[in-house]
């Protein structure tokens, strides 16, 4: 193949989410040493000119490549693990990695069924010899701790029979907490945390409706900028909004590595919902590459197989 075409193809093989394995095989196995030298010289992202006269690999770019190659493996692991172990490991990792990952803890605690969350807690015991709550309080010193511990400890009732009066009055409590109190004190607001952490999802969804009707804006809107509080409300009341947001952040132009990883997690763990709600961004077709792309698209396609 002509060199400029190859250089472009090589670049493209690494420029999405995942890696275009087929393209790489075709380019590299058909290149002799001279051709490869030219490839390296032409790939300014991956190789830099070394003072000693050779094209040296750029380590930070290679590191990014490692992430790309790892995606397929991560997808397989997430897919094959028992959901309890899977969620327990995701939570443990999120705790270790810090505040930017706390939304994953919220996601695990709030988008799973009560029994699935219980299962994850059991698996956590077996895997890490501590309870999730214990690790949360040990590793998280910030103000998010209270809410996260409460969410992870919940065993919510799942069923009909919401008391609309209570839902309405609790919507008011939240409204006042958000609009009258100091906004940055929300994470310390005991009543707000109790409501969000102990009420059933059905109750909270009714509360969400009342909030909207009474105050002409949604609870999520009112929590704009409030990090995990907003995540909590979305995951419990409008999970499709949350997942759409995560997926769109993953396929954005300047998406960071963590956002891209969320793609794997959400597609593998939510595939049934994805098909039902139809909120997979169209961009996915263009931006995913290789075996990883095949795995993701097949996951979505098979989503309605029970």
């Amino acid at each position, binding site marked *: 193949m002509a060199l400029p075409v190859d250089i472009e193809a090589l670049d493209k093989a690494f420029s999405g989410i995942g890696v275009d394995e087929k393209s790489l095989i075709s380019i590299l196995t058909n290149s002799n040493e001279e051709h490869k030298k030219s490839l390296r010289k032409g790939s300014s992202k991956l190789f830099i000119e070394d003072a000693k006269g050779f094209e040296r690999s750029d380590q930070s770019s290679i590191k990014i490549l490692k992430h790309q190659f790892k995606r397929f493996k991560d997808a397989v692991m997430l897919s094959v693990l028992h959901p309890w172990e899977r969620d327990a490991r995701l939570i443990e990792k999120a705790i270790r990695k810090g505040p930017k990952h706390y939304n994953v803890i919220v996601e695990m605690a709030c988008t799973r069924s009560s029994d699935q969350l*219980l299962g994850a*807690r*059991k698996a956590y*015991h077996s895997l890490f*010899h*501590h*309870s999730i*709550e*214990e690790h*949360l*309080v040990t590793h998280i010193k910030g103000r998010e701790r209270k809410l996260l*511990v*409460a969410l992870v*400890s*919940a*065993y*919510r*009732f*799942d*069923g009909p*029979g919401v008391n609309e009066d209570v839902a309405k009055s609790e919507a008011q409590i939240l409204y006042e907490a958000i609009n009258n109190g100091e906004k940055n004190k929300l994470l310390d607001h*005991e009543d707000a945390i*109790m409501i969000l*952490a*102990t*009420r*059933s999802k059905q109750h909270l969804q009714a509360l969400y409706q009342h909030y909207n009707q009474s105050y002409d804006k949604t609870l999520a809107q009112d929590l704009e900028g409030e990090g995990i509080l907003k995540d909590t409300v979305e995951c419990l009341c409008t999970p499709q909004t949350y997942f759409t947001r995560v997926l769109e952040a993953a396929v954005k132009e300047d998406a960071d590595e963590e956002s891209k990883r969320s793609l794997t997690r959400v597609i593998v763990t939510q595939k049934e919902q994805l098909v039902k709600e139809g909120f997979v961004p169209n961009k996915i077709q263009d931006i995913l590459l290789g075996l990883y792309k095949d795995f993701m698209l097949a996951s979505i396609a098979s989503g309605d197989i029970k």
Partner: protein
Amino acid sequence: MATIDVPEQVSVLADAEALRKACKGWGTDEKAIISVLGHRNAVQRKQIRLAYEDLYQEDLIKRLESELSGDFEKAVYRWILDPADRDAVLANVAIKKLSPDHHVIVEISCTRSPEELLAVRRAYQARYKHSLEEDVAAHTKGDTRKLLVALVSAFRFDGEEIDTRVANSEAKILHETVKDKEFNHEEIIRILSTRSKMQLMATFNRYRDDHGTTITKNLEGDSGDEFLKTLRPTIRCLNDPKKYFEKVLRNSIRRVGTDEDALTRVIVTRAEKDLKDVKELYYKRNSVPLDQAVAKDTTGDYKALLLTLLGKED
């Protein structure tokens, strides 16, 4: 160890028939009821209920509720339920009181194993269509609420591992809290509701070694705010549940007028667990056998049932 005396061979069919006979016609044969149910474990009692339903198309529990009354009925009702269901009922009764019985909620959440507490939470939902933590949160306030919700929501690691550094540092925190009486409630709640029971034992032991007295002694007294009143049984239950139960029994009998609710609750919930050990503690502490104290303070069929559960021979 358990106190109830269960025969080697049991026929749940024969039992169901015997109970039917006891309830048929005028009056009820309470002795027969006690002699069957008082000598059956949880699995057997459940099978008897199923057999009864099968044979007579009637819920045995409903039948007993209609035939019996008073403290005896309450005791039989609690005894015949599955342990998890029973705890759910006890918790709900405690929560719905005008002045909730916090110590009962503490007792259930701190003396049951982690798996047992999960079963209670499931049973509670099945019965009351709310989560246990939801109802506790709705009926309590302040730091007491924080403590109770945390305790009922806990799913403690049930392993043997102990971290001595943690025991050391948390014993310090507990001591500072107790000494200053300016309770850093957040820290105490965190420690007591998240640590495994083995870890807490290590921490309490460390406390005792460092300060020459147990933490429960340091917390003694009858006064104090609501939080303190809930904190004491929490630490007692986590530190030494049998000792805690002995105290509840002692207090329930000693009072002018017996506290039947407490008496029933402890005997019914521990008869298949550790009531034997509690009996020994009681005797050591009071120089009077528990059976004797109970016999003195109760009457009739209620007394007969309690004594049977305590292991008395018929």
